[in-house]
């Protein structure tokens, strides 16, 4: 990952997690633009954040298209909010592609016990999954298969299947 060419950007992130009916929405506020996925009625607002400075954690190698408001990449920021128990912080990381958030995660950084409890509830409402990308679309030297299957094994299995069908 080339970090040297990543410009320091100041973005304000407000993460709004909507729980209910599997709906999720993120609002990203900066330059007065909102990026929202699957907009749906707000059923519970878990946190709000103030303006914070954020530094891109990494930058996608593909240049952003000229139509994008934001440069593609992964951005991290720490948000603060005032709770009855005092000031609390929470980390938010979002990945943007063509102005769309393709992934987001939250890292609890609680101060108080209540903060810890609420932030854990917040974080546990996400689940991360890995998804496949076509090998041809990714620049690679080689691939670590989970043991790329040996020829003999496959041939033998194919023969047995053929026999079983005949």
């Amino acid at each position, binding site marked *: *990952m080339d970090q040297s060419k990543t410009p320091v950007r100041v973005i304000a992130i407000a993460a709004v*997690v*909507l*729980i209910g009916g*599997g*709906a*999720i929405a993120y609002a990203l506020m900066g330059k007065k633009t909102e990026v929202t996925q699957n907009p749906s009625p707000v059923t519970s607002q878990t946190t709000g954040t103030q303006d914070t400075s954020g530094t891109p954690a*990494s930058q996608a190698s593909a240049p952003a298209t000229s139509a994008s408001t934001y440069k593609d990449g992964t951005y991290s920021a720490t948000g603060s909010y005032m709770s009855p128990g005092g000031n609390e912080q929470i980390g938010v990381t979002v*990945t943007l592609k063509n102005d769309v958030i*393709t*992934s*987001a*995660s939250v890292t609890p950084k609680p101060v108080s016990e209540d903060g810890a409890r609420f932030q854990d509830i917040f974080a*546990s*409402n*996400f*689940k*991360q*999954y*890995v*998804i*496949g*990308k*076509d*090998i041809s679309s*990714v*620049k*690679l*030297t*080689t*691939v*670590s*298969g*989970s*043991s*790329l*299957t*040996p*020829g*003999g*094994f496959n041939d*033998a*299995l194919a023969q*047995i299947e053929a026999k079983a069908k005949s």
Partner: protein
Amino acid sequence: MWEFEAIGTHWQIRLPDADEETYEGLKSRISKRIEQFDRDYSRFRDDSLVHRMAGEPGIYTLPADAKKLFDLYRDLYDATDGAVTPLIGQMISDAGYDASYSFKSRELTISPAWDDVLEYAFPTLTLRTPALLDLGAVGKGYLVDIVADLIESAGISSYLIDAGGDIRVKSSEAVRIGLEHPGDSTQVLGVATLSHGAICGSSGNRRAWGAFHHILNPHTRESVREVLAVWVVAAEARVADGISTALFFTKPGDLHERLGRKYDFEYFILYPDYSFSRSKDFPSELFIEEVAL
């Protein structure tokens, strides 16, 4: 790039800086060395040491390279409560992954406890009863290390060895290694970057047949279904290979604690629903989708 088939898998060796003479000399040494390893440890050939051990109890003098192999096996056996064991050989064979690739399963022989059958004190291995050993959890990675040593001893400092996805690399630039999608070999789930060290993967749905795949739990006599695939990065391929199998049975925190600093590793564990866990320093970018619960 030099490509060949050996020990039941496809190999690629890249030596970008080697001159032709060195390259040719190495090719011949590596081929001979792999052949010797196969003759010692393969359970698929009837002239191997492992085959002799399956037929006859006794005190066997092990080859000089066996220490690193059996030491690691013993450590993994203890750290996984006996789940990673060379004594799984008969059970895998019974399940159908046998020397003739029959894929016909019969009743599975329960794997005996290590200390009931084996007495290991390098350079000897005593078999109280005949036992079919399977060294597949560590063997391929170890052979990759042996090949790396041959290459380094020829004065070559830049190489990539890939034995069917078990990879060891030394390079001035980081090498980008795709993590193959277990369900679709045209896709990758992420990219690991490595300039010095090894990465090995184990997956349940490759080398699979009938009700089984090649990672069997000796206690339950079933293939492990809770974990779909594991990748491990370590300094040496034998460690990465062995630990990638161990993580099918034992949680990474427990394994780390029981094995200690001697076997430092980073992991990426993939579960059947494609959720995952990984260590903080597993050197990769993953393609992640975030789903609200």
